[in-house]
Every structure is written in structure tokens, then in C-alpha cells.
């Protein structure tokens, strides 16, 4: 049959090249998209609106008396203002009716969620700028999309061990296992 004639020009390497290129494209373009599922926060919290009200970051993101960090505030803090609906935004209504008034904590998706065996102390890192590890949220109106790794279950933003180790090494801080693990 006629089809048996190979294309001499490629020297028979064309299928290989096509496969190679296809794999590279799939691996670099399609794979990152596929491995993460996209989720949204249960309540569309806007840092921008709250900052415009004159609230300081440390108003909600506080160090407690024992030195632990209240990263994402609980209902107790939010209800200081939002025990009832105070604005016009439908997102606030969802929060007040489905969470605050029902006494239910919002199941926020934590971008920097670390496994149980990791212990991170914000207090020890107080001297650093928040933006060393976190994005600048002050002007953020809609919470960023939460990309969850379908295989490991963690978010795309979760810092891996090498990132902590590198900064520790660069700053002469101990990289002993127990410093970060429990």
C-alpha cells in the first residue's frame, strides 16, 4: 500500500518528536490545570471593604496572651460588628444568617494549611513582614481561588519544607527537625 512510504526528511524521528512535544505541552500546560481543583471560600470576604472602614490588620489577626496567633478570626471577633446585618452586600447576609446567628464557625479554606506534624510559630517570625510569606491582602476584594491538589489534598499555596529551610539557612536559624515538627 502507498502509506508505507515514510517521510525521509525527518529520518523517521517525527513520531518521536511529536510525542515528545505533546508530552511537554501536556505536562507544562494541561497537568497543572488538571491536578488542582478550584474551590471558593464559603463567604466572599473582602479585605478591601474592611480596610476602607479603617480597620487595622492587627484588629483581627492578633497575638493572644499566650503568644499563639489567631490567624483567621473566629465568629467571636466577626460578631463584634456583624452580629446582625450591617451592610448591603449579599455575602454579608450569608455570613450573618448561615453562620453567625447559627453559632456555626465558617469552614474557611486555609491557603497555608500545614499538616498536623508541622508547628509554625508566628510569634517567632514577628519581625518579618507579613508579605514575606503571605500575599498583600489589603486591597483584595474577592478571596483568591483556592487551588486544591487532587492527589495530596493540600492547597497550591501551602509552603513546602524547602521554603522554610532555605530562609532559615540564609538567616542562620536552626534547621533542627524539632524546630518545626511535632
Amino acid at each position, binding site marked *: 500500500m502507498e502509506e508505507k512510504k515514510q517521510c525521509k526528511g525527518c529520518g523517521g524521528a517525527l513520531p518521536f518528536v511529536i510525542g515528545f512535544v505533546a508530552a511537554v505541552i501536556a505536562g507544562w500546560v494541561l497537568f497543572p490545570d488538571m491536578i488542582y481543583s478550584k474551590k471558593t471560600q464559603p463567604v466572599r470576604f473582602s479585605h478591601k471593604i474592611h480596610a476602607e472602614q479603617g480597620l487595622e490588620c492587627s484588629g483581627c489577626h492578633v497575638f493572644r496572651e499566650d*503568644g*499563639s496567633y489567631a490567624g483567621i478570626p473566629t465568629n467571636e471577633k466577626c460578631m463584634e460588628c456583624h452580629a446582625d446585618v450591617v451592610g448591603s452586600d449579599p455575602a454579608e447576609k450569608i455570613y450573618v444568617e448561615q453562620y453567625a446567628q447559627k453559632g456555626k464557625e465558617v469552614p474557611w479554606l486555609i491557603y497555608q494549611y500545614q499538616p498536623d*506534624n508541622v508547628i509554625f510559630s508566628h*510569634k*517567632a517570625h*514577628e519581625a518579618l513582614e507579613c508579605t514575606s510569606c503571605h500575599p498583600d491582602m489589603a486591597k483584595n476584594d474577592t478571596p483568591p481561588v483556592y487551588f486544591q491538589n487532587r492527589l495530596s489534598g493540600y492547597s497550591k499555596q501551602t509552603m513546602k519544607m524547602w521554603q522554610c529551610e532555605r530562609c532559615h539557612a540564609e538567616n542562620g536559624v*536552626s534547621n533542627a527537625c*524539632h524546630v518545626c*515538627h511535632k
Partner: protein
Amino acid sequence: MSGHAVKEFNITWGMVIDLDKCTGCGACMTACQVENNIAPMVDASNKMRTLSWMLVFELHNGKPAPEAEIAYLPRPCMQCGNPACVPVCPVVATDKNEEGGIVSQIYPRCIGCRYCMAACPYHARYFNWEDPVFPKGMEKALSPNTSTRPRGVVEKCNFCHTRLLKAKDLARQTGGNPDGLADGAYMPACAEICPTGAISFGDLKNAEHKVSQLSKDPNAFRLLEKLGLHPQVYYVSKREWVRKLGDNYAAGDKAGAEKKHS
């Protein structure tokens, strides 16, 4: 990670346990399980399968009734200065590299070969033969201080290390010095709970911590001193028969014979 010399740090967390005050009540064993999320075992009489990071031994003076006497000896991990378990780990899941000298055991890294268990002469290391199963509902009451371990990893006492990190945070918050904690600012669960206060804990190198004096008591001894592992847990007893049980002696030797102190 030389493993053949004593590792020295500026701070050395250690214990001094007064065996003349230990009633063997077992509160330390229970508190340890609660703090470290060790699941209760249905057949806890099988001592080859129990996870007793803190274990209370019963000592006998070997005399017949009515001269028989008993004593109790709580044994946590010795956090040896020259540990036998660290150099044998093929994946460096355990290491003694942190200021304070607590030998760390990192569960996600452990491959469960149990070489460290064979190496430890105090039998202070335990293997998870099974996944932890808590009675229904009890998993809500877990302690935030220690991760749970799946089957196949080795675990051991770590002097409630998370409490050290929390004590440091508290020191930072209140303007104290995280590298110079006060006596009693950091206490493992067993030392905190002991109703007779038999377990004293602190920095053996810090003159302001009472353990630094207590460890130098003439009646203080360490278990299996002659092996040269330099444990950081000292025991004190006024009773000679109790001190002699701390190591192997030839007949006629006095307790403390050939004591190699660092």
C-alpha cells in the same frame, strides 16, 4: 551527626526523678498518653505492643517476706547526650541537633525499620503495629500538641517538645527571653501532673533551675551509666538497693562503682 561523642548544647533539658517519692500511681503514664494522643489499647497487658512513652517500673529489694520492699521508677526517654538510636537511623528520622538536646523523632520520615528500637538499651522506643483507633467520640478530645502517628512508625517520648515551643512563644509575648526560660516555664506533662512532685524538670546547665543542683546530689544516679550514653534523666534515692538496681554491678561492688560522670 557523629554519634560517637557526647553532643553538647548550651541548654540541656533534663529530669531528676526522686524515687523516694514515686508512689507508682501511674498518673504520669496517663497524662503522657493524653498529651501525646496515644490511643487506648484494649489489651494493654501485652507489653510488647503497648505504647508507653513513660513507663513506671516496679523495683524489688529481692528479700523474702516480711523484709520485702518495693519502689517505683518512671522511665521516659533519656534524651541521651550520646544517643545509641541516632547514628543507626537510615533516613535520619531521629536526630539530636536542637538546642536543648531533646532527641527528635519525626514521624513522616520514619520508615519503620526499628533499628533504633534495637539500639536503645532503655527500650524507650515504641512501634506502631497498628493504626491508632480511638473510641468513637474520643477523637474529638485530642490534644493539639502532638500529631497522630499512622502504623509503621516508631515513636518515643520527646519531653513534650511542643510545650517548649509554646513556652518560648509565651516568653516572647511577655517580654521574656525564649532562650533563657525560667524554672518551671516549660514542664512536660508527666512532671506537671505528678502528685508528689517526684519528677523535677529543667535545664541541667542553668544554675537557676533546681535540677542543675539536684542532679549533683550524692545520691543521684543514671540508668546504665557504664554504657556511656550520658542520659539526661537522673534518679535520686536514699536507698542503696534502689541505686544499685540502676546498673549491673559485680557482687560486692558498691552502688556507683566506676561511675563515669561527664
